[in-house]
């Protein structure tokens, strides 16, 4: 949305293709207040940021096609679209891919039982559809998704029996962890899930401590009575369209795996194809929006809607804001990884 708004405001003709019945992506699930600074809308809930974007897009004259899937990108930047039973082709001068990410799965005996789901899935159910997926939840993963969704499950009325994390430390923000600890939720680091059991639904989870080699420590098994297991074990970019189009990729574990290589304007290795957001590397909502703005400005400039001077200045301002989000112990690793992506362009 941020990309569309910037490009449209500069004067470009912008169409957003959205496969869901509502645009806004993950923002509408984020009912917590965001971090960052004033320019990043710190203190505002994700839901409100999403609504603001929709308003801005409408005012900027962005065309949004809902319930429409891009099933392919063909040569000359032609897109294949399908909407219901109807297909069509759409020709574009510039394409910006902001297809986001998919939750990783974790396979263990019993993982296919109903009640085992992604943490993001639980978040969709409670915050968008307002239904509880269960009442007694085991959260697997203490990154920000695991911590935040645990808190939101409590707010929706579920009990979180425990959060387990295989690493010997909590990967997410300490403040998110502190909130759920105050609410009485144990966080067990160096723990793994051995198996889940149940007949029509998960009913029991067996967890165990792990040693430095990730092996279960004998004698530390514990059975938990739960009816829901949420998996918060990372995200991976949804990159099928970029693969299909022929973009070069680079493998960066800290950014979610295979990431399309791009330059400082968010342009992929294909001229006229840009990438932004979690697709360009798993980070967070604030960096996703800023990368979108950068891609939108770059696209507008390339199409002649922004002069080189104005384009350069405005892109520099966005890059400065991006840099300010990629600092500190939680951000500097991402700054290094994003730099590696840009350097990968020059590798054979």
């Amino acid at each position, binding site marked *: 949305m941020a990309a569309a708004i910037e490009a449209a405001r500069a004067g470009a003709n912008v169409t957003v293709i959205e496969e869901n019945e509502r645009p806004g992506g993950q923002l509408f699930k984020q009912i917590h207040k965001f971090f960052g600074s004033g320019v990043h809308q710190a203190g505002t809930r994700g839901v409100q940021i999403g609504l603001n974007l929709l308003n801005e897009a409408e005012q900027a004259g962005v065309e949004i096609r809902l319930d429409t899937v891009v099933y392919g990108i063909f040569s000359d930047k032609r897109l294949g679209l399908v909407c219901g039973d109807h297909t069509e082709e759409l020709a574009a001068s510039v394409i910006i891919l902001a297809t986001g990410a998919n939750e990783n799965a974790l396979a263990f005996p019993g993982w296919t039982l109903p009640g085992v789901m992604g943490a993001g899935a*639980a978040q969709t159910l409670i915050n968008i559809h307002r239904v509880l997926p269960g009442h007694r939840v085991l959260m697997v993963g203490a990154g920000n998704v695991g911590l935040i969704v645990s808190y939101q499950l409590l707010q929706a009325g579920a009990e979180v029996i425990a959060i387990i994390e295989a690493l010997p430390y909590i990967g997410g923000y300490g403040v998110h962890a502190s909130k759920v600890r105050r609410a009485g939720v144990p966080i067990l680091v160096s723990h793994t899930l051995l198996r889940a059991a149940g007949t029509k639904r998960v009913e029991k989870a067996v967890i165990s401590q792990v040693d430095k080699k990730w092996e279960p420590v004998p004698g530390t098994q514990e059975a938990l009575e739960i009816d829901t297991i949420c998996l918060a074990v990372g995200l991976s970019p949804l990159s099928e369209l970029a693969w299909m189009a022929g973009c070069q990729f680079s493998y960066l574990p800290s950014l979610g795996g295979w990431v399309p290589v791009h330059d400082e304007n968010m342009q992929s290795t294909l001229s006229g194809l840009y990438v932004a957001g979690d697709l360009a590397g798993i980070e967070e909502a604030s960096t996703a929006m800023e990368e979108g703005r950068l891609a939108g400005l770059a696209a507008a400039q390339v199409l002649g809607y922004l002069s080189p001077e104005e384009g350069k200045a405005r892109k520099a301002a966005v890059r400065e804001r991006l840099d300010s989000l990629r600092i500190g112990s939680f951000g500097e690793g991402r700054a290094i990884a994003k730099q590696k992506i840009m350097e990968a362009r020059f590798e054979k």
Partner: protein
Amino acid sequence: MRVEDHPILGKAEKRNEVTLLVDGEAITALEGEPIAAALLAVGRSVFRYTAKRREPRGVFCALGRCTDCVMVVDGRPNVRTCVTPARDGLVIQTQFGRGEKNATPDSDSKKD
């Protein structure tokens, strides 16, 4: 269970109610909500049984990518209930295997 009142989202908006027929049983849903949400709201966990081992499956990704939640809707199999809106009078059935017309719980599981 539905979240009627929420500390951040507030009270649930009033929405039109519709009736879904699920395996012969009438349940109330909110018009336009995903079928899966209506089923979870009434406490249903199992949406389908797998083709070979007849194992129960339910919601996994909740955004239309994994196909774990597919059911037979108005006679059409493999409908992703987590992204299909509830409309009045939809006939929904637990899907067995790939949802062939004659598939029943007692079907020989080898007959895929």
